[in-house]
């Protein structure tokens, strides 16, 4: 069941720096997913925590995610947005129907994340722990569009570290797990560092063919980076973003090794972040 739980946690990855919980992939085994993630928002959380409107903006990512067990305790992780599209609507006068500000779009690749996960505890431990070290490589475009306010990446090289802990157990006679993490994200290019944490509860149904998970993720900014006072920019990416989100994930094994996934997540509070749900659908392959 632990192997399955590892897979499920991978499937449900959205806000965690890296998914899979505290369970590394067994040596020679892996998990791979192709997914579509998107959000379209016409309001955002401001620095006061309230929401304000904005021009409708959409972000769509096609992402390949993969984990591979180098050893029973070392797992390589890659998250690669191979196609990223972002757009802003036209702003039109309701009086004259004329375009005041023309809409724009940007297509490209997103930022690449790579990491190594190490199981601090041996496989089979009753309370597994793992540590993940990763880097975010700015392969995306951080300055697209006429005003430089269309982005497929944040333009900064970041380094992260994350500690995961978990437990598998039975819940209402079904396989279940509880996983949590804390992490730090060190950012460059005058961006503020971040503290990240989350908790997740998953339940396996239909003889573990159907997994349902709910989770809470949060990012808290240290607010120690640049602000608009020190950096003049028309970039849509704003520093010092933070949020708390809840998510619901559903994952279904169509065959023993392949399946489909669906995810819904939304911020319940935040600052300088979109105020709209994000969705994801995908297909996965589990080398178990």
């Amino acid at each position, binding site marked *: 069941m632990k192997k399955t739980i590892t897979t499920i946690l991978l499937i449900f990855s959205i806000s965690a720096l890296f998914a899979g919980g505290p369970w590394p992939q067994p040596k020679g085994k892996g998990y791979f997913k*192709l997914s*579509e993630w*998107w959000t*379209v928002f*016409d309001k*955002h959380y*401001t*620095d*006061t925590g*309230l*929401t*304000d*409107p*904005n*021009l*409708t*903006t*959409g972000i*769509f990512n*096609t992402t390949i995610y993969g984990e591979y067990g180098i050893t029973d305790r070392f797992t390589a992780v890659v998250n690669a947005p191979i196609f990223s*599209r972002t*757009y*802003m*609507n*036209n*702003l*039109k*006068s*309701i*009086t*004259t129907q*004329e375009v*005041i*500000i023309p*809409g*724009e*779009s940007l297509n490209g690749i997103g930022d690449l994340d790579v990491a190594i996960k190490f199981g601090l505890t041996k496989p089979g431990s009753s309370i597994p722990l793992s540590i993940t070290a990763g880097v975010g490589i700015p392969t995306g475009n951080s300055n697209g569009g006429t*005003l430089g*306010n269309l982005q497929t990446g944040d333009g900064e090289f970041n380094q992260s570290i994350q500690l995961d802990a978990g437990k598998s157990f039975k819940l209402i006679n079904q396989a279940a797990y509880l996983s949590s993490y804390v992490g730090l994200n060190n950012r460059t290019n005058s961006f503020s560092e971040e503290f990240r944490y989350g908790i997740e509860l998953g339940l396996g149904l239909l003889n573990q063919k159907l997994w349902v998970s709910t989770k809470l993720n949060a990012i808290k900014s240290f607010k120690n980076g640049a*602000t*608009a*006072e020190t950096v*003049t*920019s*028309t*970039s*849509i*990416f*704003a520093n*010092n973003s933070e949020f708390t989100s809840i998510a619901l994930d559903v994952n279904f094994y*169509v*065959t023993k090794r*392949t399946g*489909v996934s669906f995810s819904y997540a939304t911020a319940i509070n935040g*600052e*300088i972040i979109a105020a709209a749900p994000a969705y994801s*659908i995908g*297909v996965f*392959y589990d080398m178990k």
Partner: protein
Amino acid sequence: MKYAKIYPIAFLLIMMNSCIQDDFIEDTIDPEIRITSIVDTIGFNDNFQFEYVYLDNTGQIEEVDAVFSSSNSDIIPITLDGLASGLESGEATLYVSYDNDEINVVDSILVSVGANTSTSVQVSNGEIQTTSSYQLEGDFEFRETTDGVVLELGENYIASTALPGLYVYLSNNKTSIANAHEIGAVEVFSGAHQYEIANVNFDDFSYIVYFCKPFNVKVGDGDL
């Protein structure tokens, strides 16, 4: 994975929602006519040419045939196209008006006749206020200069530093920056500072508007 063949279909369906569409802004305002050449006193037997601008229901300048008139032609006669003369000591109210089947707008100015033609420096005082949940407030003075205008923000001015790409404009429409004059990016977020704006007349615009360029949303405004 037969079912994986539906992935391209799902991708296309999702991407159909990524097309650029339209957002609309409620930018309807009342049309307005405005005398743009200001004088306090016309000298005896001096002439002065008055000008005007007509703003349509979105704040855009539109060419129209407006007419001038005087409340007392014995003191200050004025032609239909705005040429006024100082004849006798005293004062008169000068009007410019435009009307059609749907619109009737008027503006006026009180002018005296004296020894010399003179104009006092035009000054307007007001407050910047936020129209969003971002912090933005402060007193301002808007003043005519020899080659344009100057906008001075007071010591109590403060703006949120969390918002990227905050710009300040002069506009004739509080809700839109269409046809607005971009003063520039906001670089001071607290305390007194000023913007010197050349080639802009004191009466060209009615509002100061703060706008976030990246998000294309209004943050605050002030009445001139």
